[in-house]
């Protein structure tokens, strides 16, 4: 029974991991840019959360998802409009890669300078410590809500991309930016909004994770590794695959931790390697 409980909790953690991958997959899918600073933005979301929760102690911490996500959108929009668009315009895939790599170094050290190198966590209040019993398992209310939120965000993004005019423009721009311009679309503006969405997801996920795991300014690398693995396990370009990839990774990590308390993440990485070997197109890739 213990093991099943652990597996369920891993699946709940997976919703968060899926959100990590979502922004990365979105940016790569639309503008073919691998954002190497993705992990640092996840951590930035956590620090912003620390600040907001401390500044407004009377507001329940979970409500801070709104300002954190909005800040993520604004930062992503500004980042894309300010620098990344110039890098994309060179048409050399290496330029945005170098840019975001440099940005990750600057962000990491900037956060050390501002916040110090100590480990921190966000106290999520009563919500994070309550749970309920289901079929003999102890389920945390907070992880369950996080998974539901992640699923809702995935569904919302899916709807946005498949059904709305904005989604149509995003898909067309991803296909052929130059032809989209003939239709009156400015690809740079589309990219601004896509990066905004991606970083909103990233910072939101970072804030949510900070309520259950410690973090430091150097946690970004680990977070980005998770994001990459989620995208690859799920299958490049598949959003629901990313959520499934997150769930697989979360379960592998928690089960691994139970089995060998020193090396939970190792088992998640092993699952990733196994996926590469046996399902190189990812969970969603094989079906197509």
């Amino acid at each position, binding site marked *: 029974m213990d093991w099943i409980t652990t597996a369920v909790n891993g699946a709940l953690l997976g919703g968060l991991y899926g959100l990590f991958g979502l922004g990365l997959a979105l940016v790569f899918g639309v503008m073919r840019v691998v954002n190497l600073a993705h992990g640092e933005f996840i951590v930035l979301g956590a620090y912003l959360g620390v600040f907001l929760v401390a500044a407004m102690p009377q507001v329940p911490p979970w409500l801070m998802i709104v300002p954190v996500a909005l800040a993520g959108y604004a930062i992503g929009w500004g980042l894309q409009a300010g620098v990344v668009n110039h890098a994309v315009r060179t048409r050399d895939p290496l330029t945005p890669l170098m840019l975001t790599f440099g940005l990750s170094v600057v962000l990491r050290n900037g956060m050390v300078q501002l916040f110090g190198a100590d480990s921190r966590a966000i106290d999520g209040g009563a919500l994070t410590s309550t749970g309920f019993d289901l079929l003999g398992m102890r389920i945390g209310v907070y992880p369950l809500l996080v998974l539901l939120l992640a699923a809702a965000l995935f569904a919302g993004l899916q709807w946005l991309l498949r059904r709305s005019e904005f989604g149509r423009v995003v898909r067309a721009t991803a296909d052929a930016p130059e032809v989209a311009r*003939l*239709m*009156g679309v400015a690809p740079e503006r589309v990219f601004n909004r896509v990066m905004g969405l991606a970083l909103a997801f990233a910072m939101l996920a970072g804030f949510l994770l900070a309520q259950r795991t410690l973090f430091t300014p150097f946690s970004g690398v680990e977070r980005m590794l998770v994001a990459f693995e989620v995208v690859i396990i799920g299958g490049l370009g598949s959003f629901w695959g990313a959520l499934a990839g997150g769930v697989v990774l979360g379960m592998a990590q928690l089960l691994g931790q139970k089995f060998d308390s020193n090396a939970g993440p190792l088992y998640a990485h092993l699952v990733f390697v196994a996926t590469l070997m046996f399902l190189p197109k990812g969970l969603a890739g094989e079906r197509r």
Partner: protein
Amino acid sequence: MPPLLELDAVDVFHGDLQAVFGVSLRVEAGQALALIGANGAGKTTLLRAIAGLTPARRGTLRFDGYPLAGLRAERIAALGVAMVPEGRLLFPSLSVEENLQMGQLTRRAGAWTLARVYELFPVLREMRQRPATRLSGGQQQMVAIGRALMCNPRLLLCDELSLGLAPLVVEEIYKAFARIRAEGLAIVLVEQDVARACAVSDTMLCLLKGRVTLAGPSHHVPRERIAAAYFGE
């Protein structure tokens, strides 16, 4: 009243390589101009310059008296210049209907709506939910034309409508072309079939290695003169 499109001594470059040399032309509202010339004569490059995709390096381009210099392609599209690009270039991730709807983004009002495009090409209505690039070549060309019409342009640039299509399909496309012209928009047409190009246009212009070798009304041009302008003898 100024002509709808006026080019004066336009030079266009691909990187360091000059493709169009000092081309001047004018298209009046509602008129059709045929651009003819051998492969590599600079026809497509000239269309791309008008659409703003490959901006001209020298010379002036005016649309309805308004200078196009320095305008991005998306701004020029909003002014009412639409293009049916060579090779159709549909959006593979979008269905037929979604491809057509992309034309509405310029928010220009006019006669062309989804219903009118389906009326012009009834076969597209049946295929509306299919991925656009799964269609036959001729149907894809219809989508590309429909997508451009949905912009409700005042000037339509058509690059090689018949490229790679069976003769019967080409017939069908040009039948639609006559109905499109009846709406009164101006057209610049690039076409390999010289006789057809002259038959469907009011004026013609022949390019040879990026330079104008012949220009004038399309009808009653002696074949020898076209041949000389086309091959440069």
